[in-house]
């Protein structure tokens, strides 16, 4: 890994990262607040699960509400912006702009550039997820529900979320390595995320499609079951696998590729 490049990449993305961290913290803070305000209203109502449940979450419990907030499309969009946007543009974008040739004119290996860009993305994702969790803890404290938050389960929730988005990032890095321009790499990566998301949402809405949900990576981000103290280790293993495979592919392919002249 190249520490100097890592510093550059982090510095370059700091404003966008700061905005996303603030957004994630505010969003995480909302979960306990919303739960507290809806608690009384939902108590005496017999609402259908299609309304109270989303993904593996439920508005009837604090952990369920946190889960809904963590699996919400807004969070998906925030984290996918980094995972897909940053990673797919990392190699292909630098190649297209001509900066990759300048980097590789230094005594650095292609693999170190590759790993550094992925580590930068993983760091950014970590900071956003930490912001999300920190917001939840602050919100729970403000609403007097701190004792209802399973704090010991939060590190595993963090890891599960990081594995999910880092695996999307790994796919985007692989797409970036195989393309000379950023646009095709980004299109491919966005399509990958959207297909995964579509399969997961479709399965949750339409029982006939529920059996396909296991093929979506989103289905293996189970914040609800982790917060309820029953983490499925197979989810972690599967996400780790989908993270490692594209990275190994990129690791093998990148040094073998001709770097087209920028243009």
């Amino acid at each position: 890994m190249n520490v100097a490049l890592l510093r550059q990449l982090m510095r370059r993305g700091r404003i966008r990262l700061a905005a996303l961290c603030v957004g994630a913290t505010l969003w995480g803070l909302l979960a306990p607040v919303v739960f507290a305000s809806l608690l009384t209203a939902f108590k005496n109502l017999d609402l259908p699960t299609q309304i109270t449940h989303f993904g593996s979450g439920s508005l009837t419990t604090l952990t369920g509400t946190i889960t809904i907030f963590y699996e919400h499309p807004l969070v998906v969009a925030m984290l996918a912006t980094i995972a897909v946007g940053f990673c797919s543009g990392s190699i292909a974008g630098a190649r297209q702009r001509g900066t990759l040739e300048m980097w590789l004119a230094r005594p650095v290996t292609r693999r170190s550039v590759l790993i550094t860009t992925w580590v930068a993305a993983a760091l950014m994702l970590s900071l956003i997820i930490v912001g999300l969790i920190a917001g939840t803890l602050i919100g729970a404290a403000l609403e007097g529900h701190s004792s209802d938050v399973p704090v010991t389960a939060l590190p595993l929730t963090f890891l599960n979320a990081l594995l999910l988005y880092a695996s999307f990032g790994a796919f985007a890095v692989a797409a970036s390595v195989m393309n000379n321009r950023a646009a095709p790499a980004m299109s491919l990566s966005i399509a990958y995320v959207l297909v995964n998301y579509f399969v997961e949402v479709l399965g949750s809405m339409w029982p006939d499609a529920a059996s396909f949900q296991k093929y979506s990576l989103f289905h293996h981000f189970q914040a609800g079951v982790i917060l309820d103290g029953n983490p499925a280790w197979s989810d972690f293993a599967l996400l780790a696998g989908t993270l490692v495979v594209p990275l190994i592919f990129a690791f093998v392919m990148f040094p073998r590729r001709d770097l087209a002249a920028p243009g």
Partner: protein
Amino acid sequence: MTESSAPATVPAIEIKKLSKSYGSHVALTDLTLTVNRGEIFGFLGPNGAGKSTAIRTLLGFLRATSGSASLLGKDSVADRIAILKVTGYLPSAAAFEDTVNGYRALDELAAMGGLATQRRAEICESLQLPDVTLRRKVRDYSKGTRQKLAIVQALQHDPELIILDEPTEGLDPLVQHSFYTLLEKLRDEGKTIFFSSHILSEVERVCARVAVIRDGKLVAVEDVQALLAKRRRHVQLRVNGELPDVSSVEGVTSVEQHEGLLTCRLQGDVGPFIRALANIDVQDLIIEPAHLEDVFLEFYGGPSDSDVPAAPEATA
């Protein structure tokens, strides 16, 4: 200064039968070339001839289809990292992260490779790249200023081998002059400079030797002075009295006389021609210097591909 461990007798660049193909398209064919230590070597050819492909293959950006190359005695593929520690490279389309200022752009590139920046101030001064410009964001730079910055990043760590792809692109004539003076200074310090250009007159001043590439094939490797000796100057002579007969003078051809004006072409040493005029009352004498470009057009300017005449020293 960064030092390589290779002995001084080892050539700076040694390319052996280097070829590069993209599918059925052959971009470079059996390039064989040796660049000696401490020389400025010009790599010439029209746009699209394969100059950048050769350089990018040499530096590992492209994988050679066949052949090999060594830089400072090290294998260009296996020892790439060691080579780049003592090499400065200017790409033909140098680009920077343009949200930072010039200083930061240079610092970041140096830090990435763990390279020093000891010659930055001197190079910036030579290229007329002042402090006030370096404090501005790169996105505000003109094409010429970006090119200056790109040259600085290639030279700031005082490399032993300098590879420049079209270095004067975008530089104004004054800066070009300063740049060549800088190259001569670096050569005098023992650095090896290999640079590509499609403008022959550019290399005439500074290069000891030049290689010419066309359609991916090496056409010639020539000593610049030897090439210039082949040139045919255009001569115009006006005398008081009768025009002399110079047709038998060594090197003189195409003699024409018209209304008191003699024109001819003169190849090689001008001494015999001047001596032939010793007893002539010369009114006016113009000997137009033939540029390297004219020589190349004369010797290598035929149709491309297989019609190009083979040069006597096609490999060095």
